């Protein structure tokens, strides 16, 4: 971890030095690094087992020049739970991990080359919905498919917009990851990609993912996703499907802010009601997949409230049905999104 910290500090220093050399006479906004992310406190009760998680996700972003970007996100997480699940005294553990630390080179309007540690781009959930953005606090049941082992990959990636037209945009991602068992930097040996089509006027995006996991007995994971945000009303609809030898399933969620338009900002329009349905069909059990070994159905209902100053309250109730036993799942949390410059100077 010390080497990682040294690497982060070195990259940030280089990036910030480059930022300081940007042309002050330019009318473009300056290249100032930012520190963003979220601070939160999450609670959950799953079948009577309570857990509390204080969490900090710092995100550091440093652009330099017209083509380069260094970006990084870490997770500092405390996990406080009863020693025997539903009984015994509470005890805490601390976890730290590096979600990504990547160097991006925007070669041209169609190609960005990334090297380092990055979020595995399988479907859309892993890349786009950290806990302070996701509608529901807990990840979908099928989340481990395609993101094994840690949700992050160590290697190289190419991505970009293949074709951009006024009415549709075709995007792609392709990557390779080397295996790593280094503490806090775990990654699986894998290769894969994702492609999608976005229709801006309709607010619809559809796409598909593929991954070849190249260790523990090579196997394929495939996925597909759909997102729909009509411009006229504050409705979000998202769905993913994923398949692997250890099982397959889908989730479908809808969320509606109680407003007549996306720009309304009254007290009631800050309230968001959401529902999610999930089904998982178990396949051949395999160690380390983090997937259920029996079929599971789960239904969630949640309420989120977006307070001023980037504070969000969230709560949800879910009911899980499986042959291993049914369970009530409660989640609640508060998160605060922050954003400020990480370097003095600029305009």
């Amino acid at each position: 971890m010390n080497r990682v910290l040294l690497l982060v500090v070195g990259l940030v220093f280089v990036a910030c030095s480059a930022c300081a050399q940007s042309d002050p006479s330019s009318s473009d906004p300056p290249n100032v690094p930012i520190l963003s992310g979220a601070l939160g406190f999450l609670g959950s009760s799953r079948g009577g087992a309570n857990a509390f998680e204080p969490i900090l996700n710092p995100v550091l972003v440093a652009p330099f020049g017209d083509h380069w970007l260094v970006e990084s996100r870490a997770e500092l997480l405390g996990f406080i739970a009863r020693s025997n699940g539903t009984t015994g005294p509470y005890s805490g553990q601390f976890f730290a991990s590096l979600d990504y630390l990547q160097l991006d080179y925007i070669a041209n309007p169609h190609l960005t080359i990334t090297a380092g540690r990055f979020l595995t781009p399988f479907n859309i959930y892993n890349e786009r919905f950290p806990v302070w953005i996701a509608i529901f606090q807990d990840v979908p049941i099928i989340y481990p498919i395609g993101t094994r082992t840690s949700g992050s990959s160590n290697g190289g990636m190419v991505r970009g917009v293949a074709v951009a037209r006024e009415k549709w945009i075709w995007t792609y991602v392709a990557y390779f990851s080397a295996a790593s068992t280094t503490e806090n930097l775990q990654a699986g040996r894998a290769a894969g990609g994702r492609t999608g089509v976005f229709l801006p006027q309709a607010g619809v995006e559809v796409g598909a993912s593929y991954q070849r996991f190249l260790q523990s007995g090579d196997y394929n994971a495939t996925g597909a996703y759909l997102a729909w945000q009509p411009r006229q009303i504050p409705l979000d609809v998202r769905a993913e499907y994923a398949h692997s030898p250890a099982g397959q399933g889908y989730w479908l969620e809808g969320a509606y802010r109680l407003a007549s338009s996306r720009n309304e900002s009254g007290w009631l329009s800050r309230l968001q009601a959401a529902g999610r349905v999930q089904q998982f069909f178990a396949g051949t059990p395999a160690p380390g997949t983090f997937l259920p070994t029996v079929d599971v159905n789960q239904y969630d209902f949640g309420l989120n409230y977006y307070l001023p100053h980037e504070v969000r309250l969230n709560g949800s109730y879910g009911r899980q049905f499986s042959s291993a036993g049914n369970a009530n799942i409660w989640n609640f949390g508060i998160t605060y999104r922050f954003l400020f410059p990480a370097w003095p100077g600029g305009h």
Partner: protein
Amino acid sequence: MKTFLLVFCGIIFLVCSLKALARAQSPAGSSTTAQAVPSKPTDAQKGERRFEENCARCHHAPESISPREVKAVVRHMRVRANLTAEDERLILKYLAP
């Protein structure tokens, strides 16, 4: 005198006819040529629309963002959300006009 009156009435009729024809050909409700031509959206307005189409798919707009922060934010999202180069340019114009 009769000839003069006839010529005068003819000219008035001709002018009124031409005015009526011009009014019929112009868009309804417009009184001047300048108002008849719709104004083109500015880059900032286009950027707002690109923001709504792309960024608002995952999150709402930040309550405040300073011009010093905006370039890092937008470039971060260009990579993360596969924005086009034109999206990046216009959203920058919207967030830091």
